[in-house]
């Protein structure tokens, strides 16, 4: 197992306890991550989606890590899911984005909100990798504020028709099924979630969004829905309760991103350690220059500062899921997840910035192993809840409900 990840696993196992089969899953994740190193690097240089990611995850039966075993998944609890994402995070946030959207925003949302029929129909295919999921909430004019969504649905016989546009949708052009949010036409209330088949007439990928600062190996698209038909069986959750579905999905995705950021920091630490112990300048290894040591110390501290916040949030989330009627527990899990994501995404970005600094001029090259982390982690401070939204959530959790910015 990769040494930094192995030390995480051992420490978590010592303090919290991991079962044999959980350790076995992490061993497999480690092998899968090793298999993806070269393709992820090559695709990053080519600025193309890395199709090897679903292929390798499928090969190792890792497409449905958090999906219940009842539907063909691995049934991972949140802590195990976080450790799995931590290992993949060493490859970069491109891999994390694909996996987080398919597993956390997609599969877990169907698992949390779907009826038995929907779970059987979609989760079994998501777990096997026959289906790839996407989550379509954001629109050109509705980012952090889902209330501004303009996509609408109308009733059509025994089903619905959805029209509108969705923007910056990860896995958008490769997904077989998407969780789409829309308001009833003419009524800006009662947001509703649907599972949409991308093969339905009226669905189109308007544009693959390749003009990104980073995240080159992740698929991002602008999607168009022109009267796309959805059978009534594919409404997800109750009609009018889409905001609850959307927010709970974002919570799942948020913890996935936070976990992936741990892996990014681990890779930054591995890379700077190698650079500092093999590169000579001014007659000595650069690791012997104390100002380089300061960067390395900070990256190591960033990693440790984030790691336990993420694990704590993961444990709290599982605890809250076991007591769904305990609102206080759910809010606490929500708060800890916000803190974990807020801290780990910022510290991953800081770590990547420091890693580039340790690499010097070569660090600025897009082929250096650390530049991708710098440009990729910037988005972790934006997607699945911006820094500012996290700050508002954290502050209102301290001040009280009457201080919530958006009531």
């Amino acid at each position: 197992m990769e040494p930094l990840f192995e030390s995480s696993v051992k420490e978590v196992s010592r303090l919290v306890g991991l079962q044999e089969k959980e350790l076995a899953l992490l061993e497999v994740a480690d092998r899968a991550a090793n298999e993806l190193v070269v393709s992820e690097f090559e695709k990053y240089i080519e600025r193309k989606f890395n199709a090897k990611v679903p292929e390798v995850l499928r090969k190792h039966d890792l497409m449905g890590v958090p999906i219940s075993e009842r539907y063909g998944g691995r049934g991972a609890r949140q802590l195990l899911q976080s450790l799995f994402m931590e290992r993949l995070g060493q490859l970069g946030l491109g891999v994390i984005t694909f996996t987080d959207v398919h597993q956390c925003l997609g599969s877990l949302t169907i698992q949390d909100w779907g009826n038995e029929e929907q779970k059987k129909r979609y989760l079994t295919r998501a777990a096997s990798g026959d289906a790839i999921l996407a989550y379509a909430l954001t629109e050109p004019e509705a980012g952090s504020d889902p209330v501004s969504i303009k996509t609408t649905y109308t009733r059509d016989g025994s089903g619905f028709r959805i029209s509108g546009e969705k923007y910056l949708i990860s896995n958008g052009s490769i997904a077989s099924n998407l969780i789409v949010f829309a308001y009833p036409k003419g009524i800006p209330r009662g947001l509703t979630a649907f599972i949409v088949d991308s093969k339905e007439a009226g669905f189109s990928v308007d544009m693959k969004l390749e003009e990104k600062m980073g995240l080159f190996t992740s698929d991002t698209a602008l999607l168009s829905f022109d009267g796309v038909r959805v059978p009534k069986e594919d409404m997800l959750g109750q009609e009018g309760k889409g905001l609850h579905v959307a927010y709970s999905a974002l919570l799942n995705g948020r913890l996935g991103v936070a976990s992936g950021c741990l892996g990014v920091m681990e890779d930054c630490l591995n890379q700077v350690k190698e650079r500092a112990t093999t590169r000579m300048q001014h007659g000595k290894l650069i690791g012997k220059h104390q100002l380089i040591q300061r960067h390395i110390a900070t990256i190591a501290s960033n990693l440790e500062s984030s790691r336990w916040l993420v694990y704590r949030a993961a444990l709290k989330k599982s605890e809250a899921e076991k007591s769904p009627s305990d609102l206080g527990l759910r809010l606490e899990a929500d708060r800890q997840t916000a803190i974990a994501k807020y801290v780990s995404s910022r510290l991953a970005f800081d770590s990547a910035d420091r890693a580039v600094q340790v690499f010097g001029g070569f660090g600025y090259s897009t082929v250096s192993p650390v530049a991708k982390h710098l440009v990729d982690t910037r988005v972790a401070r934006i997607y699945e809840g911006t820094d500012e939204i996290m700050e508002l959530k954290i502050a209102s959790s301290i001040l009280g409900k009457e201080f919530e910015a958006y009531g």
Partner: protein
Amino acid sequence: MKEGQEVQLHLTGSTTINAKRERVFQLLTDPSFIATTLPDAVEVALISSSIKVRLRITDRVPPSSARLLAEGSGSGSNLKIISTFSLEGDGTTTTRLSWVADAEITGLMAGLGSLVLRGFAEKKVGEIFAGITKGIEGAGR
């Protein structure tokens, strides 16, 4: 150690070739044959450039082993590989080829780090030996 960065890799591997050991040895130590089996083996696509590599075969012990030295430079990078291969026959027409290689990479390419370089090297070495195997098996007995 010189100024700059140096990455060292140690690679091992083996494959089975459907040809007699003597024939495999003869072809593996024939630079003109080896050259025909390495279409883009020395191309470093990662940095959109290539390193020209000179190959030298030494320490021949027919038909069981030899050393292959590769040295090259280009695009601000230097590469030095010392590898040894050994052949084990089973008395029929199958030969087990095993190799050990130590690579020393300096300059810009070293900056890619051992994680990517190792993965890339393993992939390329696999392609090279697949090409050699195919070449030997297709070269007749």
